[in-house]
């Protein structure tokens, strides 16, 4: 069925791009699950999108764009398979492949649960124990979100060529080693789920840290995707508390996405955020997940992190931030899963309870070489030094923190804080 475009309707190419953005991971999962070959699936899918951009503007957008793309990609996949076998078909012949825009000819898409299944399979492939741990999240970024190696490399602060090469290698391993596109059997599932949670958390963390950063324009999609995957995981293994813990953590964080950057593009720390911008529905959902998780009485790091977020969310009801509770939760987190990030969080919470001096003492517990390279730690230290009146020290540390910050929004925020200390110093008698 051909449709002529009326003014105001999305243009065909814009729709192709939107479909690419929204459906990429689902389509890739469906195509790759059949062949076990991610790189090959990426190629045929790229061809399909290319054809859409060529054909949709002149022939009209199909009623079911995703089904159309899937059909084209699968036909192409069969062609590639055939030409690999017989080497008979010429490229020109393949290009003659005409897909009518009519829905009747497009492949019927599996129901949405089917889509979910295929994506889950892809997720378990990405987080397979036979895949290099450091490559699991990058692989998810590429396969589930369609990000290119350059964007992923930027998030990991490594050269684009290196990331591209590693991604090629890992996809080759999946194909050659015969890693199956399946959801593990229940008895194997528990052993496999931790790596999956870790990778989904990585997806969320990258999106979240980069969120105010305009250079990673897909950042919002990252934590949206992470939230979606966490929701699917709950359906898959509802009995595992850490799955709900992770979902709650992502949900809480995501509920504040609109409040993190002000209308004029400034970074807004959580304590200063406009709580009317918080998504109360999502907060409610996250609270419920956390509650369900706690019923098991088996604590885990994601539950603790979610509990920390829950305390922040409670400010919308009580009007105050319960810093003693946060200090306690961070202390627990440091015992269960020590990390520099948790150490910094703990120092900040303690500074609110016992004063800036105690916060500085807490930061001093962090390895100094690690601290010198970790921007949030430096930013916290600079702030606390300013609070105890060591203004010139504060300025030095701010400079270091700013030098480590590439994100323009965060940079501007730190510069504002630095100027405040600078002004204090010049007006000091």
């Amino acid at each position: 069925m051909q449709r002529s475009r009326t003014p105001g309707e999305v243009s065909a190419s814009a729709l192709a791009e939107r479909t690419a953005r929204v459906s990429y991971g689902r389509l890739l999962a469906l195509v790759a699950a059949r062949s076990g070959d991610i790189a090959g699936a990426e190629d045929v899918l790229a061809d399909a999108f290319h054809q859409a951009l060529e054909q949709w503007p002149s022939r009209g957008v199909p009623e079911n764009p995703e089904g159309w793309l899937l059909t084209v990609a699968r036909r192409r996949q069969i062609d590639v398979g055939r030409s690999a076998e017989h080497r008979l078909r010429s490229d020109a012949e393949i290009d003659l492949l005409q897909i009518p825009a009519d829905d009747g000819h497009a492949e019927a898409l599996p129901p949405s649960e089917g889509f979910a299944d295929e994506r889950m399979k892809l997720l378990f492939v990405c987080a397979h124990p036979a895949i290099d741990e450091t490559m699991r999240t990058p692989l998810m970024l590429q396969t589930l979100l369609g990000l290119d190696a350059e964007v992923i490399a930027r998030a990991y602060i490594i050269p684009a060529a290196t990331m591209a090469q590693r991604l090629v290698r890992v996809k080759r391993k999946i194909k050659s080693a015969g890693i199956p596109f399946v959801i593990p059997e229940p008895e194997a599932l528990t052993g496999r789920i931790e790596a999956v949670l870790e990778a989904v958390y990585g997806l969320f963390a990258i999106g979240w840290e980069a969120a105010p950063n305009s250079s990673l324009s897909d950042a919002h999609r990252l934590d949206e995707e992470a939230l979606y995957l966490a929701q699917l995981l709950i359906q898959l293994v509802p009995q595992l508390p850490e799955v709900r813990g992770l979902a709650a953590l992502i949900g809480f964080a995501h509920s504040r996405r609109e409040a993190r950057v002000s209308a004029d593009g400034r970074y807004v720390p959580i304590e200063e955020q406009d709580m009317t911008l918080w998504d109360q529905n999502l907060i409610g959902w996250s609270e419920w997940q956390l509650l369900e998780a706690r019923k098991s009485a088996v604590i885990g790091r994601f539950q603790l992190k979610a509990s920390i977020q829950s305390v922040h969310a409670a400010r919308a009801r009580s009007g105050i931030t319960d810093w003693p509770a946060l200090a306690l939760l961070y202390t627990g987190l440091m015992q269960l899963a020590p990390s520099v990030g948790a150490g910094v969080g703990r120092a900040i919470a303690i500074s609110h309870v016992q004063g800036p001096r105690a916060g500085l003492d807490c930061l001093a517990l962090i390895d100094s070489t690690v601290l010198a390279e970790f921007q949030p730690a430096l930013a916290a230290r600079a702030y606390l030094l300013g609070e105890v009146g060591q203004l010139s020290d504060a300025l030095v540390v701010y400079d270091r923190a700013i030098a480590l910050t590439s994100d323009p929004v965060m940079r501007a925020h730190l510069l504002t804080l630095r100027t405040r200390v600078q002004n204090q110093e010049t007006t000091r008698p």
Partner: protein
Amino acid sequence: MKYTLFLYSDETAFGAMSQEQMQQAQSAYMAYTQALQDAGVFVVTDWLQPTLTGTTMTLRDGKRRVQDGPYATTKEQLGGYYVIDVQNLDAALQWAERCPAVHYGFIEIRPSAMG
């Protein structure tokens, strides 16, 4: 798909085994091989003599060079292998998990390049 399971372990431990322990090990491997055969996934296996019995050779510029000992000296040595024919890596991993060698050594699982 064919996979080879390379069995690596510290071969000196075998030398230190008593007669009885050796027999136990042998019957564990026999049972494992039998299980592979019963499942219809067994292709071939071998148990190798210690590396000190090995000889390594290469032709460099058409010149034959032969040297005593294994190709690489490592803490664990290749002591045997199984070739199995299974659906995918997960199945291969499941079989590797049942191999007696996992308890005292390492198993490297490599897919065949010939399908």
